[in-house]
């Protein structure tokens, strides 16, 4: 009997699992190759980044193949593999493509800015790839154990990358803070997981809601029941772990310090990729908890709670960004604020998913997750663009303060225009991509507000915060375009390759707004992916 089980497992793995896991395998293989290359000094002949780019491209290509298969299938597919540890659906494939693409863009950026140098390249790219694999696992996790493993696998390389500028004291300090804070959060999360799994007797996230119903013994689950209370506490503790990854208030303290200490490239990577993975995980976790009438009340309250956290996070991020002079720190707060906007989509999804009209709202629910994914896609380009400009300017001025950007337009228009497009998009000014992303999220919050009044507050807070954010973003533009270039600041020559790189990012941001085919195509794919993640509750 055991051998039969083993055979089944092997067959399953060989049949489907390895295929589904091919992107991660490619990345892992690339890590091995990179390390071996250094061992045999091949990296002197072939630059490591070329191997890295090939590996990332291969991962992207595999994911794209899976994507094509899933789109070609008539019915949306969602299957678990590796013994229920991971889940394969359009949602996880979407994130695999997203992360592969982002990995390629990041590698390209590091090549252009020259961090890391040749000596350190294998180490750096190994860490980068390891973190990416962790994020991919987060996006396809189907089990609480994988949840924890994914988060840690993404976090540990990140700690090292933040401290990668070995010579700099600030970098090491940031890294240390990040590690200790991360360890604390991880401990809390692990405790939460043990509570949840212990009470409910399973780690499979898709079964959580059903098990809570069993625990609640037929009645509506509420905090009055001590077992449900314990589960709620566990869920909350897991949330704390995720909130750390998402840098939600009040678990955001590491973020500004880590970003300031890390190089701009790493900060850009963390601000987008690790957020993307954490949001994927959060959506899967929340969906797993929803879908049965008994938990509806509890989960609606949970959604509203997330909405409140979103309000606090957005407002806090935007207001705290006001007085920052270091651009990376400013963008760290901006990242916090944007996490708040995206959390609004999850809150809206939870509220709609757990209302009694959920069946009729299927499209709107898809739309809310789709909005989140669209936001992430645009965010990838606009945030990376902003960090890239900072990194490129830093290479010439050795400074990341807003003052070093003064009057840059006279020296490097390409960088300034890119920054302009990215910042306008971050603010959400039409017709750039950020506007449509924000519009989609606000639209689904509005839909959710038809169900629960509190979401109106969330909507209003989102709108007001958009205005708040205007002030500090425009400060950057004002410095670049309107002020005189101070005499003592080093000049930034118009870069050639670097210029093309940032312009490509800016064009993507613009096209995601200008080009209706692109907007419609991406958002419909995002909605499809949103639909896929809901399959587990038979939606």
């Amino acid at each position, binding site marked *: 009997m055991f051998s039969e089980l083993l055979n089944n497992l092997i067959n399953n793995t060989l049949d489907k699992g390895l295929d589904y896991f091919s992107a991660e395998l490619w990345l892992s293989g690339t890590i091995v190759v990179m390390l071996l290359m250094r061992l045999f000094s091949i990296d002197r002949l072939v630059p490591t980044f070329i191997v890295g780019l090939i590996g990332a491209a291969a991962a992207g290509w595999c994911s794209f193949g899976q994507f094509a298969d899933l789109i070609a299938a008539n019915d949306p597919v969602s299957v678990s593999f590796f013994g229920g540890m991971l889940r394969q659906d359009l949602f996880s494939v979407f994130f695999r493509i997203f992360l592969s693409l982002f990995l390629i863009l990041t590698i390209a950026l590091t090549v252009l800015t020259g961090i890391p140098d040749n000596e350190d390249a294998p180490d750096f790219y190994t860490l980068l790839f390891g973190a990416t694999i962790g994020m991919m696992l987060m996006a396809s996790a189907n089990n609480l154990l994988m949840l924890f493993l994914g988060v840690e696998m993404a976090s540990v390389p990140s700690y090292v990358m933040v401290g990668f500028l070995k010579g700099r004291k600030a970098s090491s300090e940031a890294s240390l803070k990040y590690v*200790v804070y991360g360890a604390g959060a991880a401990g809390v999360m692990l405790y939460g997981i043990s509570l949840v799994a212990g009470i409910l007797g399973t780690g499979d996230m898709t079964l959580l809601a059903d098990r809570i119903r069993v625990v609640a013994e037929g009645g509506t689950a509420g*905090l009055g029941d001590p077992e449900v209370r314990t589960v709620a506490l566990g869920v*909350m503790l897991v949330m*704390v772990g995720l909130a750390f990854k998402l840098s939600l208030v009040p678990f955001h303290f590491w973020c500004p310090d880590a970003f300031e200490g890390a190089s701009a490239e790493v900060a850009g990577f963390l601000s987008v990729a690790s957020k993307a993975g954490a949001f994927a995980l959060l959506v899967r976790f929340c969906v797993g908890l929803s879908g049965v009438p008994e938990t509806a009340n509890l989960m609606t309250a949970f959604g509203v709670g997330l909405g409140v956290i979103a309000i606090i996070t957005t407002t806090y991020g935007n207001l705290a960004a006001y*007085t920052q002079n270091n651009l990376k720190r400013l963008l760290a707060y901006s990242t916090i604020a944007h996490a708040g906007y995206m959390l609004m989509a999850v809150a809206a999804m939870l509220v709609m998913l757990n209302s009694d009209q959920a069946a009729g709202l299927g499209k709107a629910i898809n739309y809310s997750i789709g909005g989140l994914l669209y936001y992430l896609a645009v965010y990838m380009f606009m945030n990376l663009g902003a960090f890239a400009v900072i990194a490129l300017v830093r290479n010439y001025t050795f400074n990341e303060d807003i003052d070093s950007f003064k009057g840059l337009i006279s020296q490097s228009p390409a960088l300034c225009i890119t920054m302009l497009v990215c910042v306008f998009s971050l603010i959400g000014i039409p017709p750039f991509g950020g506007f449509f992303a924000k519009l989609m999220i606000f639209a689904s919050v509005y839909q959710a507000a038809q169900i629960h009044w509190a979401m109106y507050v969330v909507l209003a807070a989102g709108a007001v915060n958009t205005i708040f954010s205007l*002030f500090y973003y425009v400060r950057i533009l004002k410095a670049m375009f309107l002020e005189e270039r101070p005499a003592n600041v080093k000049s930034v020559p118009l870069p050639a390759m670097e210029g093309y790189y940032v312009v490509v990012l800016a064009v993507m941001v613009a096209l995601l707004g200008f080009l209706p085919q692109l907007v419609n195509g991406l958002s419909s794919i995002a909605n499809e992916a949103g639909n896929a993640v809901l399959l587990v509750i038979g939606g």
Partner: protein
Amino acid sequence: MVGETLKFWLMIAWLLPLAGFVVEIFFGFYSKNPRHSKAAAWCAVGCIGIGFLCSANALRIWGNANDWCVLEVAEHSNAHADPAHSEETHDADKALADHDHSDADSAKGQTAYSGVIYTLGVFGSLEVTLDYYIDSLTLVMFTMVTLIATCIHLFAIGYMSDELTDEYVDHSAHTADGGHVHRPGRFYRFFAFMSLFCFAMLGLVLAGNIFQVFIFWELVGICSFLLIGFYTERKTASDAANKAFIMNRVGDFGFLIGLMVLWTFFGTFRFGDTVVDDQVVDQGLFSMVHRDNTGNLTREEFTGDVLITDTHGHVLTNEDGSNRQIPYYLMVVVGLGIFAGCVGKSAQFPLQTWLPDAMEGPTPVSALVHSATMVAAGVYLAGRFFPMFVQEVLLTIAYTGCITLFLAATIAMVATDIKKVLAYSTISQLGYMMLGIGVFGWAAGLFHLITHAFFKSLMFLCSGSVIYGCHHEQEMPKMGGLLWKMPITAFTMLVGVCAISGFWVPFGLEFSGYHSKDAIVASALAFNYANPAHFLLFLIPLLTAGITAFYMFRMWFYTFVGKPRDQHVHEHAHESPWVMTVPLVILAVFAWFCAYGGESGRLYLMLTGDEPAHVAAGVTAATAGGIVLPGHDAIHAVHGQAGTWALIAALSGALIAYVLYGTSVVNVEEMKRQLAGVHGFLANKWHFDELYDALFMKPAHKVAAFCAWFDGAVFDRILHSAAKATVIVSKWDRVFDENVVDGFVNLIASATQSVGTSLKVVQTGRLRQYVMFIVLGVVALFAVMFTTFPG
């Protein structure tokens, strides 16, 4: 299949000049030595020359495919010219031609091919396309245009050769300080424009729908504009270019109205039916109106509206079951509108004044654009659109042509500029063609179009050769006695003069103009017999035939014989190089013999092959207008009579010219003084320019001046006071803005700023605190959860 083959060859002939244009205008400029290279010219000649070969080949294919049946049938009918016989021969011919068609209207379906080249746009059930319509007229026009254009391109290589320089001195253009304009030569540009023109002109001929005609109509217009204004530094040239373009706009306005009516009532612009597998899938305009056996349009009995029919003459119905019809007056509007376009393009009265001014362009342009092809496009369109014209429109066309031909001929008698004489002669001859079409001599008008194209382009090129030989002297009073200085030019021009005068030569060697003009005069005479009230339509052309001979021989005598009047010019005059004389000889041969055989000759029969179906029989029953139109028999009956009179008129005109200018019997200057009033009136072109100046320009200036005053005195004052008011308001606004709005914004900003600053306090950077915040955060969340979540 034949249609496809014809389309293939004609498309090549049509598109090659466009390719040539692109090459010349871009690579001409970028080549190594653009100002000195003749490459552009040879490129242009090559394109149009190959175009000629393709067209001729297409003509041959068409003939073979139809077994030249049209020609033989027509010859057959011509052999029995007597009226009694011809009626039944005609019927027999029709039966012969219609052996697979029951309907007489579709007889020409055998020889006309039409179809779609490219779809421009689809609007519901309506579509705008580029079509082709190929019948014998198209093919003859194609061959004529490409042949003449080839000759003229060749000629222009010699004529424009002084542009082959980096530093061209334009003696007719002056700078502000009184000196001559110096500019780089524009040899390649000239040929680029000429190629573009050829493309546009051939496109116009090939066009399968009236809208496409309009597109190319405008394209030839713009080419004409560019070429008239080629010496753009000369004010006269740029003014002339503007005048030509603007006067054409007046006509095109009518054209547009016609198009709108057509679009509204017929829903298509296409001429012919689109036939797929012998099924009519898309009906064209020509088959939508049906003519009964009297030659009149089928009309609703009570309202008199013209009924719109299918190809077999059955009335089409609207969706609600009522008959589709178009009010009769709108058919007149359509005809007059389209004709208005023709009036502008063909320089007919009252829009004739632009053509003489257009002579400011280089002489090859005058030969190609302003005599042989573009100006004839108006006549071509009138001929092409003939099936849609009702009697009232035809009468208008006839009278317009009649007035024009007389008017222009009289002015030509006193003009002294050699090119102006030819220009007025062109207007006059175009008038003949219009008259021919108007009096139902459809084939006669188009016949004259072809013959005229040859002899008039010949004469223009001859005049170009004279001008070139005399170092850009155009005034005839300064010439004289050039006969043996430039013999080839002189004798080829004599051929042209004889041809336009319409001289008869025994043994069938008649000049082409003899045949074509006789055909028109005969049609006019037949029309006169049928409608005695319109006798002027015969008398004036007859008289003008004499005038034509007079002014043409006057020009020839003035230029080539007599004593040299200006020694300087005479001494330096020389015969032109071979590139210029060879085209002259080629054209002279065609000018003499292209109409060989007259109305039993191939050219005429080709043209009649695709004659609109109702022309042969004429319109026998008079309608509201009271006009009866003569058929072929009626015209044949008076042919000999008309020809004799026309020949007498021409001979006497030539004789008077010889007496006045060829001998010194009469003192011409003395005569001029005696008839100073008449001479002045004619020399001032009947005062048309002054009349238009007084009628349109002056009032327009008055209105403009009034508008300027009104603008300054009223509008500006209103605007200024509005501006002042705005300034006052904005001053108040500023106060409000600075204190209230800004205050509010600043309040928010400073409030948020201070919140931001206070938030900074939390971010201490102390790790111990951060970890403690985790604990605090968890506990706080837990507390919140327990107090707010449902129990």
